[in-house]
């Protein structure tokens, strides 16, 4: 967990005004404690992801909202998928087999 200044120092490509905008856009959601932002691992990874996308694909702010929105949906879906798989995994073997049989070939 690191503070705002340390985060900016860590990524020379990132400046404070930019980070502020990202937080306002809700692209990055740091924890707010004692009126100080605290960035967890997931937030740092997300900052790095945004920087990567911007640099590698020349994505502007407007398109970035779309890209992040889609990514978040995808990860959310994967999370739901995993819950579903966990639920299936906890079934007795005969039910698991029946489900496997019922799955159409992709």
């Amino acid at each position: 967990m690191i503070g705002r200044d340390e985060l900016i120092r860590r990524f020379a490509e990132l400046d404070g005004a930019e980070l502020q905008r990202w937080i306002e856009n809700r692209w990055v959601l740091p924890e707010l404690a004692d009126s100080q932002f605290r960035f967890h691992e997931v937030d740092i990874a997300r900052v790095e992801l945004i920087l990567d996308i911007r640099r590698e694909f020349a994505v502007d702010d407007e398109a970035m909202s779309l890209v992040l929105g889609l990514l978040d949906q995808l990860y959310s879906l994967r999370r739901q998928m995993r819950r579903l798989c966990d639920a299936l995994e906890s079934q007795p073997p005969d039910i698991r087999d029946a489900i496997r049989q019922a799955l159409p070939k992709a």
Partner: protein
Amino acid sequence: MAAQTPYEVLGLKPGASAAEIRKAYRKLAKEFHPDLNPGKPAAEARFKAVTGANDILSDPEKRARYDRGEIDETGAERPRYSYRPHAEGAQGRKYQPQGEMDIGDLDDLFAMFGRGGGRHSGRGDAGLNMPGPDRQFTLTIDFAVAATGGKQRLALSHGEWLDVTIPPGIDEGQVLRLRGKGGAGFGSGPPGDALIEVHIAPHPFFRREGNDIHLELPVSLAEAVLGARVAVPTVSGPVTMTIPKGSDTGTRLRLRGKGIHHRRHGHQETTGDQYVSLKVMIGASGDADLATFLEQWAKTHPSDPRHAMGGGPHPGSADKEAAS
């Protein structure tokens, strides 16, 4: 306290130019050089830091890697922060769209497969509730039913019948889905659907192109030459049509609005036309009167219908060639 960045070591801002870096490095290197500061460990440490910072910032490739966070201030590789494990981990929940997704969204996922999920199946519920399987059928319908719509019987398995409502203007190969007419569901799951692939039997004289109907209509020589009013079959029953005087084989007439009345979700209603191509049937074998008339008539009305093909009339020789 985290280590100083190479920029901070050289007293620069991250956007500094190569010239500024060079200048700052030379100034600081001179200032803290061990030869000029013998016996001062602090100065030696600063000198090392300045040299290390310059190593990274003076090399455009290393500097770019540092700026991207790929290497740290000592030039060592930084661990990559792959986003996926974080996104899918416990901390990633806060980035889920519209807050926490819950069991209701799993239901939405099942609904994508067409028949809704077991909504109140609950956690750890022993029963398995699943929709029944779909069943596939094929059904061949009459041309007229396809055009105007109607009901057609479909034999399901084991002596079961189903009256299938055919919408007007259905296309060859179109699949109709009858909800709940498939296999039985498991537990309290709903039954599957019947999927019926519709084939249209060819008609002896109608032909369909989109919403238009095409028909070849035989007419007599007299009707073609003199004109007539004749009855013409359409998919919605016979109508009377005028054949203009002086028509010929291939003359095409249109019966507006006598094609297929087509209504589909999200589309405007459209009605096709029926096109009637005339085919003159001479039907005069052994008619001595007509033959006599034509002998006289041909003498004064020479004509060559094959003119466009480049050949002229060759009375006599044509017979021989055809016979040999």
